[in-house]
């Protein structure tokens, strides 16, 4: 379970996260929604230990992030929204490299790679340079790299950005599958509301550095029905976060 209390973070005295409190149940998929600049990536960056928080407390599966960051990082994995791998390497070389940095070697590395290759459906293009891949293949590889260490918690930052309907469908099914089979906790950000509705057990909406709504997906859709007249997450989101444009400076 992930528990966040009184979390604050500022960049150059500009507050980005303000008193964030959130808890994510073990083994659930939580959709994290928010307009551009709401604080989603900052929150995930803090949870993954990429950046430091200013104050507040975070515990991950009973471990304090401040004191057991190494242990937490070895049990978590982060899949950024950017294609964070090496285009001039093949899929196999990328998997080997990131696997080795996860301290995997020998049989364990081979097994992990086989699992990830299977998950990413990459058997046919494993030895092809990644810069020759289609957008969907790249997204699948990006996610597969995140699964190398068989994490307890997987952070997915917009994993379907810029892919076709088939790849998107495949990625969403895969997320559900690994969550079911491996009891993996998944925190998932996306701008596609239908995706969030489809895969999430619970939803949190963040805006201007604050969690403005958090609950089970079904409860939130019921609330949408009550507020907007029908079970539409996007309408609820716009109602809660306001329709004004959020152009980042």
């Amino acid at each position, binding site marked *: 379970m992930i528990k966040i209390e009184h979390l604050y973070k500022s960049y150059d005295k500009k507050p980005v996260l303000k008193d964030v409190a959130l808890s994510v149940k073990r083994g659930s998929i939580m959709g994290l929604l928010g307009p551009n600049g709401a604080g989603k990536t900052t929150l995930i960056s803090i949870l993954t230990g990429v950046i430091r928080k200013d104050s507040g407390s975070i515990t991950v599966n009973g471990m304090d992030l401040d004191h057991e960051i190494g242990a937490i*990082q070895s049990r978590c*994995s982060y899949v950024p929204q*950017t294609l964070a791998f090496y285009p001039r*390497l093949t899929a196999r*070389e990328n998997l080997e490299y*990131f696997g080795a*940095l996860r*301290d995997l070697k020998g049989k364990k590395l081979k097994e992990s790679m086989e699992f990830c290759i299977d998950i990413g459906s990459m058997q046919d293009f494993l030895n092809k*340079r990644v810069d020759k891949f289609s957008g969907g293949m790249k997204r699948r590889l990006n996610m597969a790299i995140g699964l190398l260490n068989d994490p307890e918690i997987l*952070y997915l930052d917009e994993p379907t950005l810029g892919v076709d309907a088939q790849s998107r469908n495949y990625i969403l099914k895969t997320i559900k599958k690994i969550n079911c089979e491996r009891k993996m906790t998944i925190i998932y950000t996306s701008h596609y509301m239908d995706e969030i509705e489809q895969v999430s057990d619970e939803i949190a909406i963040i805006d201007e550095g604050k969690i403005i709504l958090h609950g089970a997906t079904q409860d939130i859709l019921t609330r949408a029905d009550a507020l907007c007249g029908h079970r539409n997450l996007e309408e609820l989101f716009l109602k809660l976060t306001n329709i004004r444009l959020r152009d980042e400076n």
Partner: protein
Amino acid sequence: MIKLLYILKKEFLLILRDVHAVTILFVMPAVFILIMTLAMKDLFDLHSTVVIDILTVNHDAGKRSAALLKAMEEHNTFRFHLIDKDTVTESVKEQMLSRDYKFTLIIKKNFSAFVNKKGKGKDENPLELLVNPTVPVQTQLVLKSALDGELSKLRWDAFIGRIEKLLAFAGIDKKDLKADKLSPIDVQYVYKGGQSFKMPSAVQQSVPAWLVFSMFFIVVPISNTFISERDQGTFMRLKSMNVSSSYLILGKMIPYLLINAVQVIIMIAIGVYVVPLCGGTALTIGDSLAGLILIASAVSFSAISVALLIASIARTAEQATTIGAVMNIIFGALGGLMVPKFVMPEFMQNLANLSPMSWGLEGFLDIFLRNGGVSDVLPKSLSLIALGLVMLGMTLILLRRHREV
């Protein structure tokens, strides 16, 4: 150790699959070494094959002018092309420029009279030298000095001829007083440790210069991979995997140190084995392997540190490669890589000492040319390492401030 091996493998694969990086790191310096060595071959070669062609008009009817030309041609450096003595001066100048002669020597009517100190015009200047303005002053001085020297010998021999009877009366053999045909000056090159005689050939100058230049060009692949890793979120991913900033920097440092080492080996091999096949002299690398490793490692460390700093300051890979390339060319030119330091005026030589490339070049020259050892390259190596540490420190501060790793 496994991690490190995969990091090395990754960096090597990235470079070997980057055609531009391979060209800049290996092909460019190899081609430079071959071109510059062969182009400068005669500048350093004692048995020079360079011949200065001189258009010549001989108005002198005496024997002395022919003796001058014969003596000059024995230098094997000058070749005189005689044209009709009735050619007017304007036509001579026209021929000189149209036929691309650098010099025209006009031997005046009074030449033999001047040498013999007898007859009409014996006190007037007997030679006139027309010079193409593109000719370097040093080349003009070489020709002028040779003419002065040969003229003096002719005049001395003529003087001895004039006092021949007096010498015979005094019992002196005139042969003993004749001017020496050969130069009385012995040229010797000085090397550390009194080692065997080695010629400062073009290859000894070119290999270290272009080697240092290419080692500093490591900025191109480093900034390309570093900035793409930063922009594509790979650094962020690695940070989330508990890979520390220092480890990431080390992960860049070690592969590129090895790549620089491969450059050193390849460029030396080109100097030793390929240059002789193209007609140049083979590179000799001195006797101090430890000294060579020390200076090569120091140059590499500072080049990589400078590259990392540029990569961490630049916003785009294009910006980094432009800054890096311009800096390299300026520091290379300043540091005596493109024009040897010894041909620079004193103030430029002093200025050259500001360039880290000059420290590296001098270190390699210590080993290759002056037969130096570890103690000779130690001060230059320490300066390069100190520079590298400062650059590396600045890189780490910048990266942490920007939360990039």
